[in-house]
């Protein structure tokens, strides 16, 4: 255990030792470069959560650096306000950065990738224009002197240690977030937004929190940058810096802390070594960006991830252990999910046409019908993705509001998808832990500092997820990256994720598709056991044998209406069903 703790941290420790010992070189120029790397990293560490984890293409982050730099410089100089201490000014920069982070980030909640990238770019363009035009405050093109931090962090090695301490703090804090349920939710938003919603991730609140943190760090970074530059002009904040920040993360690899840290050091040091190329540095960054995007989208982190290059066992078998389910699900009995007169049309097509259905806990309810009969649409209505034009849904008698898929987890309604929604870059265990997100009690701030409540949450989610993985028979693959799994394993992984929510109702959308006969048999036993443990299962499936084997009740849909309903035996002998769907 102790050795494994070290394994993940040894690079960080080596870096820290090198950084602390740097003054021994007695090379003040090296000091300046190292200070700059620390300052960049303070910004990039925060931006990494936005770009590397949440997958938001925030390009114009230099704008926040600019704002932070001018705030600290102007407040310290006292030309506009009473002169204040640079340390206080740095706090003000963090506040300004946080507010601006929200302003820049707000569009990310509604806009798709390119639009958001463009708004961040526009913001950067405008901040530079304002810095040039607002001469009374910023000094316009002439610039303004940067702040000088008084003892103990005075210019030179004192300032270097100040930046180093802050950089180390940022590394620690963002790594804490990365390993928390917030980090997992961010990656889920990036890789499988639908799965994140189904697990109850509140995207707007989470993204805004991350933008506040990232903006504050960028503000602080800007204040320090102004001090390092000793004199700032709008030219100092050209777009090249934005590109540098962005590329550092991509070179490092998305979803990693160490990778972007190494990327930052690399990009800060490289131009110093290749001095004749300084004029071409941005050109080379751009070329690098193109090469990374086209050739190695995984970055440094992928190359360091040797554990996921070890070959997996060739012939793996999924052996569920249904006996574990009652302990895992821990359901109080009783519960009904009822749809009444639900109607939903897409344009002129009536996908569901006045559907009334009851689902009971402890039962497997099969939903069958030909393609286009409204099975998946019904699931999507229950899980909130579609908003019907008429009818209502009730959960244990209380109205279940339509829409708002991210609120379904709170009602203990879980689901799987026709095509598995995996978070490819995360481990199987992390994928499954996502399912229990809403049961975490600690706040973002508590995770930032690994306070006890955060550690209790993590322990609880990990235990529950491991239990769920064992129950579906995937426990040996817990540490493997999810995109290395076979299709059938992904299906069981999705079920494990749903089980981690301790669902009252579980909706399975064609879980047997693509499975072998033996796997289908095991799946059937697992589903049956889930229902017997107290969860109501709604099963949409085309495998008639599976349906008739395990269902307690079956509803047959045709053209959005109920064609027949009853026990499997009744359905099997229903004349219309046999002729329309099952075949003779």
């Amino acid at each position, binding site marked *: 255990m102790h050795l494994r703790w070290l394994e993940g941290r040894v690079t960080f420790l080596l870096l820290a030792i090198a950084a602390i010992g740097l003054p021994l070189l007695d090379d003040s120029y090296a000091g300046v470069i190292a200070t700059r790397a620390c300052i960049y990293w303070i910004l990039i560490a925060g931006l990494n959560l936005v770009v590397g984890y949440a997958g938001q293409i925030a390009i114009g982050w230099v704008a926040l650096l600019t704002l932070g730099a001018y705030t600290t410089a102007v407040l310290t100089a006292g030309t506009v306000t009473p002169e204040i201490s640079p340390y206080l000014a740095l706090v003000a920069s963090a506040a300004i950065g946080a507010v601006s982070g929200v302003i820049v980030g707000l*569009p990310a909640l509604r806009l798709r990738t390119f639009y958001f990238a463009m708004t961040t770019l526009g913001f950067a363009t405008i901040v530079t224009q*304002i810095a040039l035009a607002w001469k009374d405050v910023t000094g316009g093109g002439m610039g303004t002197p940067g702040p000088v931090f008084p003892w103990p962090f005075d210019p030179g090695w004192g300032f270097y240690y100040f930046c180093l301490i802050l950089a180390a703090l940022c590394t620690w804090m963002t790594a804490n977030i990365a390993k928390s349920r917030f980090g997992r939710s961010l990656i889920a938003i990036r890789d499988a937004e639908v799965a994140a919603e189904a697990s109850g991730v509140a995207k707007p609140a989470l993204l805004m929190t991350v933008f506040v943190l990232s903006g504050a760090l960028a503000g602080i970074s800007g204040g320090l940058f102004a001090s390092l530059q000793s004199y700032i002009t709008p030219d100092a904040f050209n777009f090249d810096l934005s590109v540098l920040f962005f590329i550092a993360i991509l070179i490092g690899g998305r979803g990693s802390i160490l990778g972007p840290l190494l990327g930052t050091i690399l990009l800060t040091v490289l131009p110093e070594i290749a001095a004749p190329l300084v004029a071409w540095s941005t050109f080379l960054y751009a070329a690098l960006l193109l090469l990374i995007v086209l050739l190695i*989208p995984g970055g440094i982190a992928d190359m360091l991830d040797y554990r996921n290059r070890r070959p997996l066992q060739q012939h793996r078998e999924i052996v569920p252990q249904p006996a574990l389910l009652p302990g895992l699900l821990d359901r109080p009995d009783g519960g009904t999910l009822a749809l009444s007169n639900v109607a939903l049309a897409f344009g002129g097509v009536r996908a569901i046409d006045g559907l009334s259905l009851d689902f009971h806990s402890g039962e497997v309810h099969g939903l069958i019908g030909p393609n286009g009969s409204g099975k998946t649409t019904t699931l999507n209505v229950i899980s909130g993705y579609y908003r019907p034009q008429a009818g209502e849904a009730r959960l244990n008698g209380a109205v279940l509001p339509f829409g708002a898929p991210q609120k379904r987890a709170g009602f203990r309604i879980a689901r799987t998808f026709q095509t598995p929604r995996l978070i490819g870059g995360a481990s199987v265990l992390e994928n499954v832990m996502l399912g229990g997100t809403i049961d975490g009690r600690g706040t973002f701030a508590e995770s930032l500092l690994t306070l006890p409540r955060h550690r209790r949450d993590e322990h609880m989610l990990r235990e529950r997820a491991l239990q769920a993985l064992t129950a579906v028979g995937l426990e040996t693959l817990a540490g493997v990256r999810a995109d290395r799994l076979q299709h059938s394993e992904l299906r069981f992984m999705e079920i494990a994720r749903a089980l981690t929510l301790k669902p009252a109702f579980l909706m399975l959308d064609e879980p047997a598709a693509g499975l072998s006969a033996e796997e289908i048999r095991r799946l059937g036993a697992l589903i049956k056991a889930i229902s017997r443990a107290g969860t109501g299962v709604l099963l949409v499936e085309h495998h008639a044998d599976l349906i008739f084997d395990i269902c307690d009740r079956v509803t047959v849909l045709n053209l959005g209406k109920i064609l027949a309903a009853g026990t499997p035996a009744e359905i099997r002998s229903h004349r219309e069903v046999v002729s329309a769907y099952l075949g003779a």
Partner: protein
Amino acid sequence: MLESIVSYGLAVGAVYALIGITYNVMFTASRVFSFTAGMLGMLGGVLGALFIDRMGMPAIVGLLLVLACGAVIGVITEIVAVRPVLRSIEQHLYVLSTLAFALLVAQFTAIEWGTDASPFPRLIPIDEGLLDQKFWIPMLACAATVLGLEFLYRRTLIGRAFLAIAEDSYAARALGLPEVRLRLASFALAGVIGALAGFAGGEMLLAFFGNQSILNFYGFVPVALGGMGNNRGAVVGGLLLGLFQQAANFLVGGIFASVAVFAVFIVVLLLRPEGFAGASGARRV
């Protein structure tokens, strides 16, 4: 004052509209938003100044060469930054690949041409008439482009093929349309339009490498407001943006103008992400 607001505003607006159309032409062919639109506009100005001022070519030869260069850059964009990414699973990598390519070209320009703004030559050796040529040339270029595109899309076979690809590229390929070649042609066309925008607006905007980011943003605003792929929306939006910007510039100063444009852009996008003329698509789960 009103006169200068209107003439300058409409002229700058015409340039924005042309850049917006450049975005649209690339988008309809590939469903890719390309960051190269502003770069093309910037190149139009720089190359125009290079060919006509520095190399002493006649204006008309300079224009044709600039447009040819735009087409070539457009084709290279498609081959280098778009085609490889369309094949990959990760769909929004194109944001990064086109940005990287645009930066490459812009930086190359900065190094070879210089980072200061250089004057752009007067194109037609006549005295000032009612309206100066630096104002009416961009407007004329914009009008000609819009009419040309209308004709292309509505009346010619190749234009209809473009529209078919835009509507449903799978179905279009099933019909036997050469999707890749049509996409290449679209990017070449976008290159021509982008370069024309920079060339026509050259005397106003100067030959300046920094125009790329400015045009990238202000050219995208009308597209975002008018709806992606909607050229009429881009023209109306572009002209309104130019007028609004100039009016704000004159009346309340440059800082406010920039902030106001940005604020309007964000607010409109938040309220109507699909633009005023666009329709939102249904979600697939």
